[in-house]
């Protein structure tokens, strides 16, 4: 009974905390960006502007949620639901601290990769169903970008899988007790972080929603709560990638003095802050640059990383035939 209650609490917690972080980020990102750019940002509502989140949420609930009569209606409504559910369900396979996980599947990483492929559907369907030229162009770019970056996202994780000998995120984190994987797998670490940025369509990879040319890209025709779902889905995605970088490369819950769960949260927040810093520091790429960067540099690099990791493990195990 106690066990059941504990599991129920974990499920609710794992569902609620990413949501809280994601909605907090809608304020946090603007404040941090303002800090980097020497302005104030939203600081009027509540202490330091924290209640801006509540104000925004209330506002967006009251806004007219308009479904275009020329759109493909069922698909139009379905698309924002897919993105939020696909990104959120990846949290189910993460292990946040020893014993704290919804389900530490032995195929955890595969589950995450499958779900991140599902997120592509959401963007494509949204752009197609809108029947708007900007939206269609944005979603086409999103397919090209997300498909290309998904190839080496999977490859960059292979080094970690070889070293830990498992797809379970709990096992992978447990294997980092003495040495975080960001040291032996530094190439994988960098490639995965870049691919993660591209998968969440963040600057410098935010071509699918480039404001200066495509209005708002694939969610041009979305308004009200459905728009909020895309917005929130993006932030949940950022939180997910940050949590994965933490679990796979930054030692997960390992750390001195503080309890394991606090360490995990702390590292995740630091990675998120880094993503926001990247947004403040880098300009947007051009689409041909983006594709060349992916296929001609990142893909060969992650293949090389796989070979080198294999060779090193072979050497460590002492060349058994």
């Amino acid at each position, binding site marked *: 009974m106690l066990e059941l209650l504990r*599991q129920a609490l974990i*499920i609710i917690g*794992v*569902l609620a905390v990413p949501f809280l972080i994601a909605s907090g980020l809608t304020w946090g990102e603007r404040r941090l960006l303002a800090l980097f750019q020497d302005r104030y940002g939203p600081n009027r509502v509540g202490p330091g502007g924290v209640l801006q989140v509540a104000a925004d949420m209330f506002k967006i*609930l*009251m*806004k*007219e*949620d*308009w479904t275009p*009569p*020329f759109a493909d209606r069922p698909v139009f409504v379905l698309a924002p*639901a897919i993105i*939020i*559910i696909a990104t*959120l*369900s990846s949290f*189910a396979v993460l292990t946040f601290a020893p014993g704290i996980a*919804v*389900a530490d*599947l032995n195929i955890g990483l595969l589950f995450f990769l499958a779900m991140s492929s599902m997120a592509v559907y959401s963007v494509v369907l949204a752009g*197609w169903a*809108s029947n*708007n*030229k*900007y939206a*269609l162009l944005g979603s*086409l770019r999103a397919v*090209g970008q997300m*498909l290309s970056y*998904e*190839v080496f996202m*999977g*490859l960059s994780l*292979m080094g970690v*899988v*070889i070293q830990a*000998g498992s*797809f379970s995120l709990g096992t992978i984190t447990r294997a980092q007790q003495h040495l975080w994987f960001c040291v032996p797998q530094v190439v994988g670490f960098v490639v995965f972080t870049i691919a993660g940025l591209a998968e969440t369509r963040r600057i410098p990879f935010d071509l699918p929603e480039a404001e200066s040319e495509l*209005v708002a890209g694939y969610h*041009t*025709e979305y308004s*009200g*709560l459905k728009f909020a*779902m895309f917005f929130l889905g993006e932030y949940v995605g950022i939180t997910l990638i940050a949590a994965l970088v933490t679990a796979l490369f930054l030692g997960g819950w390992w750390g001195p003095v503080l309890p394991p769960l606090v360490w995990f949260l702390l590292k995740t927040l630091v990675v998120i802050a880094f993503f926001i810093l990247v947004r403040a520091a880098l300009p947007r790429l051009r*689409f*041909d640059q983006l*594709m060349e960067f992916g*296929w001609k540099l990142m*893909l*060969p690099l992650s*293949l090389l990383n*796989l*070979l080198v990791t*294999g060779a090193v*493990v072979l050497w460590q*195990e002492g*060349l*058994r*035939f």
Partner: protein
Amino acid sequence: MTNQTISIAIFFVLGVGFWMIALAVSYLARPSKPTKFKETSYECGIEPSGSAWYQVHVRYYIYALLFVLFDVEVAFLYPWAVIFRRIDGGQMLLFSELAIFVLILVFGLVYAWRKGALEWE
């Protein structure tokens, strides 16, 4: 294993439930005042011409093809990566198999590169 599946199923249902509740609340709270010009597609204020359901550039198709090729090959590498360290003996053979496999992959990449499939014109 079944416990894990049930946990994920509950997690999934709760996620969908959240989405339904949010939609319902918004449905009750929001106004709905459609006007003639609101009902047109957004094209920066100019009157929209034609549908957006139109042919798209063939470039995207080539990238999609490349994706299918490479992602399937990556899927073959996953089981290899899991057992490589854990297997007892035979690592040398396994590694040379990996090397051959990656070599074929690289050959494919070079071919696509030389053919100009990676060029965005």
